[in-house]
């Protein structure tokens, strides 16, 4: 009887009901979307950032992160790599060498004057072309020319090597693909070494600060040039999912600490990025709270209006002998029914919207810049939080805000309220 009455009441005044439903559905939709947005965009930014360059986990010699020295090396990268391959959470790993050098460029076709006036200091990163490709998709960031390949320089000190320059560095050196480049560097045994390179490609990582002073040579080449033997400075690890990173870091750290190696997650070695991310996430949580609050206010407003509009009707019901408790239960039930309908409708809507946003993303204008890495697109992700948080908000608000006007309606004097409208 109560349910029937409430159900019929809902459809008695269609325009009013549609209005209330719209407000509640809108509130659900907005809250759901912003939560999916936040989760999705942050994990995609983190994955994008880490997959692009750093990896989610890195292994170094103890103390390397605080004081990167050419001597702080991982002496048996292959053994570490074999161990990493045996772990199910590790998608792929890649070894790297970091050092510095003086670079000087002679443009193609300027003869053999042999005087290199265009010189600059730069960080030199030694990468394994195939492994780096699998890990960070290095070739995708080559803007001119090609990626590094194996060359004679990988085995012979006197052979001409291949080098890839950061885009801004190539501008500073006035260098283009095909030009000759001389590198003067100091090796780990103290000797100074100079070597000839041909510029094979120009790379743009999206971080101008890095591209301004970074060049890349092959790992084998770097090991000869810097007299490092088999050693490397860093092993970057790519994992399948962000949620498993902390556990995996613990596992690797436990196994490698006896080799005096240090294992860190992106939260440590990309601390600046992590902190920026966390601060931003906090501020977005406040925004989402405000959105949910606004949606709740909308629901409160429409239900309040609905009750006030029907005071005459409640007066008649009371005059006919309806008990106050019945009226309260009826109004709250009506609100709840509308709440459930809104949640159902809102779920369909937000699923569609989230699915779309997880595929296409939204263009950021202006682009977001985290620690120098620029993000032009934000992508949403669908998770249970996108549904249960807004659902609880809508239904609880509907029930809570309807209670007060319902009580008021139930306790009005029948004669007075009938006369009022």
């Amino acid at each position, binding site marked *: 009887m109560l349910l029937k009455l409430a159900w019929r009441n809902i459809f008695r005044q269609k325009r009013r009901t549609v209005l209330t439903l719209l407000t509640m559905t809108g509130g659900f939709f907005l809250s759901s979307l912003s939560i999916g947005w936040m989760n999705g965009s942050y994990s995609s930014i983190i994955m994008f950032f880490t997959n692009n360059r750093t990896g989610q986990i890195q292994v170094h010699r103890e103390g390397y992160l605080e004081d990167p020295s050419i001597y702080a090396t991982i002496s048996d990268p292959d053994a570490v790599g074999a161990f990493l391959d045996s772990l199910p959470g590790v998608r792929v790993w890649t070894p790297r060498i970091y050092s510095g050098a003086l670079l000087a460029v002679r443009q193609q076709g300027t003869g053999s004057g042999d005087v290199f006036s265009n010189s600059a200091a730069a960080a030199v990163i030694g990468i394994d072309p195939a492994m780096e490709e699998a890990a960070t998709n290095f070739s995708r960031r080559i803007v001119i020319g090609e990626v590094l390949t194996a060359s004679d320089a990988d085995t012979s000190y006197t052979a001409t090597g291949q080098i890839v320059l950061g885009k801004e560095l190539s501008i500073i050196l006035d260098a283009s693909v095909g030009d000759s480049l*001389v590198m003067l560097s100091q090796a*780990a045994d103290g*000797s100074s070494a*100079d070597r*000839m390179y041909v510029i094979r490609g120009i790379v743009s990582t999206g971080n101008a600060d890095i591209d301004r002073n970074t060049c890349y040579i092959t790992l084998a080449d770097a090991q000869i040039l810097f007299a490092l033997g088999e050693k490397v400075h860093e092993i970057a690890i790519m994992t399948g999912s962000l949620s498993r990173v902390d556990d995996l870091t613990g596992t690797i750290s436990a196994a490698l600490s006896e080799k005096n190696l240090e294992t860190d997650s992106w939260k440590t070695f990309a601390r600046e990025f992590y902190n920026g991310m966390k601060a931003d996430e906090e501020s977005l949580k406040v925004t989402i709270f405000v959105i949910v609050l606004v949606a709740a206010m909308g629901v409160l407003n429409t239900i309040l209006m609905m009750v006030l509009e029907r005071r005459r009707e409640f007066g008649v019901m009371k005059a006919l002998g309806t008990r106050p408790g019945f009226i309260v239960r009826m109004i709250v039930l009506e609100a709840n029914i509308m709440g459930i309908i809104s949640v159902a409708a809102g779920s369909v809507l937000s699923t569609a919207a989230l699915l779309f946003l997880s595929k296409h993303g939204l263009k950021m204008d202006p682009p977001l810049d985290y620690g120098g890495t620029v993000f032009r697109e934000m992508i949403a992700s669908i998770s249970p939080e996108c549904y249960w948080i807004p659902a609880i908000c809508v239904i609880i608000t509907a029930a809570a805000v309807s209670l007060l006007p319902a009580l008021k309606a139930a306790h009005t004097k029948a004669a007075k309220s009938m006369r009022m409208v």
Partner: protein
Amino acid sequence: MRSVILLLSMSVIPGLTGSGICQPPLDDLVHSLDQLYRSDDSYAEMSMHIVTPHWERTLTMQAWSAGTDRTFIRILSPAREAGMASLRIGTEMWNYLPNTSSTVRIPSSMMAGSWMGSDITNNDIVREITYAEDYTYSYTTDTTLTGDQADGVVYIELLPKSSTAVVWSSIVFALRIADTIPLWEKYYDSHGELIKTVTYSNVQEMDGRTIPTQMQVIPADKEGQSTTIIWSYAEFNRGLDSSIFSLRNLQTGD
């Protein structure tokens, strides 16, 4: 550190008068520091011994200098570096790299960097300043700067003038009064922390001049690290062909 280049330039003006007085005229002493290794031109053969916690190596080299602004250094050994050469004209510096037969100008961003892996920077080699003109100076008795003070030694504190661009904020010299030969110099930063110590020893006569033929640079913040330069031969004011200090000479070798 200018004394490094002066040492590399290797030229001496004969000892100044004033010995025997307890504290000789300060201006004369500072002038004698400036002139210790300076001459119209010089040629020297020397070795540089570099010690670090990770490696130790010795380079031998020849060095030519003319006036205060031109220096040419060629590495003779070890084999990997043999033939490398540095030419400095004024504040510009060029390195010749024999493996790649190329000449590279050192960019200003690397002038503070190490020369050949030693504790001597490129800046030390190109610096043209003089103590007498670019520093203010006074005798000091502050033992926190000089350590225990010895008899027959004077201590001079040099403060760079505001127009002098250096990374230290004071230099303290210890000089033997008898022959105005420096014993050591200490470089301090603005917090009074020691940056590096340069010691002079093995005073010998070379081509008619009495000079310390061994100089050791010890950076204060790098434990177990030092660079020692030892002169084995020097000649002064013999008249050098100015074509020595040219990019052409840098590339053709000697």
